[in-house]
């Protein structure tokens, strides 16, 4: 499934990942949740929001690539994700160039 989907139509297709991978993925996500909750309790000041956001982004990436199978999709899907990230960065970035310098 990693290349053109049309090729493998009549072949037997199995899931991209087994049960074990999903349990490992879930365990990692729970672990990261524990870290983010602990980090919030440490009162790290200004960088605490950055820590929280970085962990949230790591968690989101894990969900996207493993639970949502993006890892096994072709380039088209990866580009779609890049476009969204670029669009959101531009929206937020441009807004701040306005609000921060008023």
């Amino acid at each position: 499934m990693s290349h053109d989907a049309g090729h493998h139509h009549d072949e037997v297709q199995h899931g991209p990942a087994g049960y074990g991978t999903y349990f490992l993925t879930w365990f990692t996500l729970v672990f990261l949740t524990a870290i983010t909750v602990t980090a919030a309790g440490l009162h790290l000041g200004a960088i605490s929001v950055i820590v929280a956001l970085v962990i949230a982004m790591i968690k989101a990436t894990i969900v996207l690539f493993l639970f949502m199978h993006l890892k096994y999709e072709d380039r088209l899907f990866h580009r779609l994700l890049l476009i969204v990230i670029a669009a959101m960065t531009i929206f937020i970035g441009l807004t701040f160039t306005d609000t921060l310098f008023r």
Partner: protein
Amino acid sequence: MSTQSIALAHHKDYRGSKFGIWLFLITEVILFGGMFLLYSVYRSEHAQDFHHAAGELNTLVGTINTLILLLSSLTMALSIAATHHGNRKLALWMIALTILCACGFMVNKYFEWGAKIHHGIYPGSPKLAAFPKGEILFFGLYFTMTGVHGIHVLVGIVLLTTMFIRVMNQPNAKLSFVAGHGLQRVEGGRLAVLDKDGNTVWRGEEIDSTIERIDVKTKYWPVKERFRVEDFNLLENSGLYWHIVDIIWIFLFPLFYLIT
């Protein structure tokens, strides 16, 4: 008598349907992205007020709901993996568990919102109006964003219940021969049902030129060896929707509950 096998496969555009759901998920990201943008601008302007207001939220309830949603993401992924292994029973159990988690999330949300409203904190309340401006903004964003997210969870419950019923009855394959579209391939023959030794169990009338359409409906459950992703693309797409609901919560949780 000669038999001719015709594959009972409908052509479904698996990749197209998956691309379609991803496009929809992007509109969801843009929808919440707009609200995250509002949040970040107001937060940068009222950092102290946001800080105080977030202290009012119950971190424990937020953490429990995060864990519930993560568990539901696991069961969702497992249900799809189960269909790939031809394990229908496990697939159904996992969808049911996902629905249960979603309901648990909403029950928590109900008590959480209920407690806030009980304390007089709700949009437009007199008590909230007396708060500093930044705290009013914080609670406005809190009710709007977790509210819109909650609506998505409710939609997910309906969607997954539908998927449960579909998978339970699934998949129904329908093969149609219509005049001008493949009917001539079977003209002069008969439809028959054979057992595994090739003995005729049932035999239909001869298909002559007076027949204009034949519909064959079958119900089967794919086994591991003959799995086709197309048979479960709706379940898979519902799963993608459910995971994006989880991702949105992954960002909502630290921004509302952990900035105290």
